[in-house]
């Protein structure tokens, strides 16, 4: 098959990221900046970033920014963990603490609404902030503030539901903006530095445009042709790239329906290393050149390249990695901590191509077994306050 015969909605979303970056920033920067007051950003002593699925992943990706730029202790939790298992006293027993970001583009997900309601039920406590594209949604109404996301117009040209790449970028951008804002308001750096961080986000997304995206696209189509017979995939990361590994695995699941796992690269050496059918497990290692885990990643890459069909996604020099591995070299962000904003691009393209080459529909569209499952069970699940 030719590459363009395998075009798909996920690929179109991926190609739109560098295009949407600037208009999205222009539409959203001011509302994001003014979403929280100075006292609201000063008061909290800890942050919780809560979501389901991709939105949970956005929290994992943004956690290092809140800690590094905002100077605040931060946890990323699944909505289930926050709503049913996280100790009440850590949801709130003092004003404006923690600063609780609840992330959902739709704002309709039951478990997220439950988190907001649980925080409110704790009495004096968490300042809940809805990160959503729908400021009138139930989640936003259950929150005390809204970090609004206004998406830019987009039409993939395909009549298929695409894994939400643009909404993930938007959620992550909103969280990064809020972390930058917190550091700015707390005067951890000058306003000019904060503006430079904001500019760097847009410039990083734009650096994937044009020929860069075409080259990544060609490489991922070629790899998809080699990997199309595989039915299991593993994704390795460390630190901020754990979010990338998580998100990459999610795109494989959503696009192809194949089993995909993600793991911390060190844990992988202890457990997943022992996969028996190792020549048929497509394995992806994501590592940023600025990562403290870079040297360890080089060691793991040696093992991977010997055992597994391997893709390395990195902004480091490709020559550092074994010849047997496929290396997809990405542009570097000006600030290393911004890498998770875009470093999932190669696997998003790969996922879309694999789905087409395998002849499966994104999100199992058209398959009766999946249609009979009410897809809105995420939004109609019973809310319980425990």
């Amino acid at each position, binding site marked *: 098959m030719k590459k363009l015969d395998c075009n798909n909605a996920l690929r179109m979303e991926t190609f739109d990221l560098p295009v949407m970056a600037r208009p999205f920033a222009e539409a959203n920067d001011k509302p994001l*900046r*003014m979403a929280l*007051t100075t*006292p609201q950003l*000063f008061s909290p002593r800890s942050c919780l970033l809560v979501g389901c699925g991709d939105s949970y992943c956005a929290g994992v990706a943004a956690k290092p920014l809140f800690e590094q730029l905002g100077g605040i202790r931060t946890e990323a939790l699944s909505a289930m963990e926050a709503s049913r298992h996280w100790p009440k006293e850590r949801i709130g027993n003092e004003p404006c603490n923690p600063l609780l970001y609840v992330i959902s583009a739709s704002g309709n997900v039951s478990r997220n609404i439950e988190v907001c309601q649980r925080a409110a039920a704790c009495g004096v406590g968490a300042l809940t902030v809805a990160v959503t594209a729908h400021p009138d949604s139930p989640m936003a109404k259950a929150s005390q503030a809204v970090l609004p996301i206004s998406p830019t117009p987009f039409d993939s040209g395909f009549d298929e539901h695409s894994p939400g790449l643009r909404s993930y970028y938007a959620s992550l951008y909103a969280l990064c903006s809020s972390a930058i804002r917190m550091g*700015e*308001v707390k*005067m951890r750096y*000058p*306003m000019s530095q904060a503006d430079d961080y904001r500019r760097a986000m847009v410039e990083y997304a734009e650096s994937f445009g044009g020929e860069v995206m075409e080259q990544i696209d060609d490489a991922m189509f070629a790899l998809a042709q080699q990997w199309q017979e595989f039915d299991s995939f593993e994704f390795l990361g460390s630190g901020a790239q754990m979010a990338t590994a998580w998100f990459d695995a999610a795109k494989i699941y959503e696009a192809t329906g194949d089993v995909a796992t993600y793991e911390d690269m060190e844990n992988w050496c202890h457990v997943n290393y022992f996969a028996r059918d190792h020549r048929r497990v497509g394995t992806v290692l994501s590592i940023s050149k600025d990562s403290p885990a870079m040297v360890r990643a080089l060691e793991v890459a040696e093992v991977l390249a010997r055992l597994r069909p391997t893709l390395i996604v990195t902004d480091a020099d490709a020559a550092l990695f074994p010849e047997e591995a496929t290396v997809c070299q990405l542009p570097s962000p000006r600030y290393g901590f911004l890498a998770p904003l875009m470093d999932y691009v190669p696997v998003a393209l790969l996922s879309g191509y694999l789905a087409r080459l395998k002849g499966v529909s994104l999100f199992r569209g058209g398959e009766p077994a999946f249609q009979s499952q009410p897809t809105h069970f995420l939004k109609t699940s019973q809310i319980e306050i425990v």
Partner: protein
Amino acid sequence: MHFYETKIECPKDGVVQLTEWLRRCVRESGVQSGIAVLSAPHTTSGISFNPYMLKPEDHQDIQQALDRLIPMRIDYAHQFDNPADAAGHNKSALMGTNTTFIVEGGELVLGSSQGVFFFEFDGPRTQRCQLAVYSDSSFCKEE
């Protein structure tokens, strides 16, 4: 009118002496008798006077006095920027951003210990100062 501008690389809460630059500009203008107007076209800066011979760190006395009058708070109505910036606007309004000098005998007229200083109340930033020197003759109505 003779117009001059200088860039000032200001550290956070920096104080920069302008006295010698002002004297040079006035001499260069050739104006023998008139006035000079100094302006800092910013909203977190100010222009004021202090003894010119003080050690640079001594000028922080004025910054600290202003800090006591207008402390940095997180509840200013202006929240677009940061608390230091909000306080800086207040300090700038209080100190003022322009002043006028007498020019006589081709020289800037200052008291024996007077120095002219640019105060930044936020930063670090690159700021500007502008000077316009007018001759008496420019105010005379032509017959």
